[in-house]
């Protein structure tokens, strides 16, 4: 059984998607149990897979029994083993937390929503697990199409934002496809490892250079890397909370994974960092991304939109870290994929809970929430601390590696940007805490205040949220183990 984990990882959610779709027409109450079971199996398989990788090294799975490069192969190493666990667990936690709000927001379309949801998870898992450059494109499109659908089911502006995302996403995916085409035309292969094997003699070729740049631009578009980020804030803001709390943590992070996979496996760091003198340009772009993301977030008076700009800044962290071209930076970027997925999940679940109870997420709607929803806000504080980068929450540790990498690369601009963004995050979040904590102001100095009744979100929403908050701290405390046992092996030894 264990050697079939890679296949199970994708097939189980895929088949369950069809089952849910059919169940929607037969008996709607079956949908939720099916999706939870399927995602639990996925989490189990992904953890099993990661353990197998830790024990025995890289796992290669031949789909259809055809060995690569003839057939498509799954290729699981420490890098995607880790990301798989993150994707699977985020999806599971989110679906449990989102059940109530899904039922509240679309009482009659819950089944198709769950179907799209799990199809998206399938797509993301497939992107992460695959070892075939073209297969990645197909799954990219599944994740994207479901994403358009999920994001469009929001408030009034959601459709327009989602359509804009569709345009940008399609350009991004097409660029990636074109880059793969360029690789194909010079190597004749589509398997990542095979391409990596065939490429070294071709490093001087203009086509390889072009393939690399085009792929990168495509992936950047998809991950909303500055200045290609314009679609993201609106698309994520106007979506329903169940959709945005799945998409916001995962999509950009998975795309960062794709970028790292391209750099590390397909093109190899020697080519990406040595042959081309692009590093510096990209890191400076990342610096601008971080600074702009932070500043644009400051300008927002709307919690959810503010968080989306933080995502833009966080993407800058990861891209910049990966492009520093050293081990510490890359470690930071990979670690930040994990951490950022978790902390974004945390804050977006909080938004979900707030929307469920307060029906709004503008700053004015947040007054007095510390008293009203103490558990939700407690988790929010943990998530915010993580985004700010306060130990022992996990956000600090990836930031540490990123700063270390920047110091080792001598890139002080990036260090400054990271510190700046931390400081701005303090302002951003404490501005919200202040509103939740102080307002509405009472005239008589808070004494003899008639305590507002507690009005917490349902248990089903709060418990997963608290679990995420605890995970944020645990991941922080176990950073040493994650880095030493997993990420260390995910980065090729050539990268110092």
């Amino acid at each position, binding site marked *: 059984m264990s050697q079939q984990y890679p296949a199970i990882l994708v097939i189980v959610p895929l088949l369950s998607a069809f089952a849910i779709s059919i169940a929607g027409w037969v008996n709607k109450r079956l949908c939720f149990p099916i999706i939870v079971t399927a995602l639990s199996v996925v989490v189990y398989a992904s953890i099993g897979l990661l353990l197998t990788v830790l024990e025995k090294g890289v796992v290669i799975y031949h789909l259809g029994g055809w060995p690569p490069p003839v057939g498509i192969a799954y290729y699981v190493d420490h890098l995607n083993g880790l990301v798989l666990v993150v994707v699977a667990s985020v999806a599971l936690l989110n679906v449990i937390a989102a059940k109530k709000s899904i039922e509240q927001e679309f009482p009659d379309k819950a089944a198709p929503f769950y179907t799209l949801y799990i199809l998206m998870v399938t797509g993301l898992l497939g992107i992460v697990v695959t070892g075939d450059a073209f297969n990645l*494109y197909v799954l990219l499109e599944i994740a994207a199409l479901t994403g358009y659908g999920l994001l469009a089911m929001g408030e009034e502006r959601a459709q327009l934002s989602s359509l804009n995302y569709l345009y940008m996403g399609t350009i991004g995916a097409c660029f990636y*496809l074109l880059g793969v085409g360029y690789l194909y035309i010079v190597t004749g292969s589509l398997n990542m490892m095979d391409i990596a094997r065939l490429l070294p003699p071709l490093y001087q070729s203009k086509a390889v250079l072009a393939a690399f740049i085009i792929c990168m631009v495509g992936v950047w578009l998809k991950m909303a890397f500055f200045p290609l980020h314009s679609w993201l804030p609106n698309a994520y803001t106007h979506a329903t909370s169940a959709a945005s709390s799945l998409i916001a943590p995962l999509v950009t992070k998975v795309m960062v994974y794709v970028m790292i996979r391209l750099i590390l496996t397909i093109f190899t760091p020697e080519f990406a960092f040595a042959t081309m003198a692009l590093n510096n340009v990209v890191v400076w772009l990342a610096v601008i991304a971080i600074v702009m993301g932070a500043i644009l977030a400051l300008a927002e008076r709307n919690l959810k939109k503010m968080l989306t700009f933080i995502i833009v800044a966080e993407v800058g962290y990861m891209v910049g870290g990966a492009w520093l071209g050293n081990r510490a930076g890359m470690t930071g970027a990979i670690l930040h994929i994990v951490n950022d997925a978790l902390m974004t999940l945390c804050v977006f679940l909080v938004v979900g809970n707030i929307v469920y109870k307060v029906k709004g997420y503008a700053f004015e709607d947040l007054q007095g929430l510390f008293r009203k929803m103490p558990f939700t806000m407690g988790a929010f504080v943990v998530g915010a601390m993580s985004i700010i980068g306060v130990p022992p929450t996990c956000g600090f540790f990836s930031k540490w590696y990123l700063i270390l990498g920047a110091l080792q690369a001598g890139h002080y601009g990036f260090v400054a940007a990271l510190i700046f963004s931390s400081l701005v995050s303090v302002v951003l979040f404490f501005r919200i805490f202040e509103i939740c904590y102080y307002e509405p102001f009472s005239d008589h100095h808070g004494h003899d205040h008639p305590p507002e009744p507690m009005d917490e979100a349902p248990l089903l929403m709060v418990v997963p949220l608290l679990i995420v908050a605890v995970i944020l701290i645990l991941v922080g405390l176990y950073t040493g183990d994650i880095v030493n046992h997993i990420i260390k092996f995910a980065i090729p030894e050539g990268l110092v």
Partner: protein
Amino acid sequence: MSELIPTIIAKYNYWIYITLMMIGLYAMIAKNNLVKKIVGMNIFQTAIILYYVSIGVKKGATIPISTGGHGAAHEAVHAADYLNPLPHVLMLTAIVVGVATLGVALALCLRIYSRYNTLEEDEILAQIRKK
């Protein structure tokens, strides 16, 4: 100069695809009408399909279906006689993806139209701003 022209002619498929792709890209960026953007998007995707399919072409080869039919299992097959089937397969996928994206995009447009009664982006944005 004498070398340039044969090079240009020998690779004309690439020039065509690049031209088409840029037309599509321009339409997506510059056009104001949402459906025109979708048209641009389709041109863009089709250009890539054209590129891929043109990779598969081989001089003097025929379509990748065994001329011998079912019974020809044991005859020697010369790879040079057939076009490269891989790009075709890949593009079948890309076409399907293109169709799917088109469907979703049109559905979105329909929703937008029913809400704003227009498909011109600036008019929609003006309406949003007014609120």
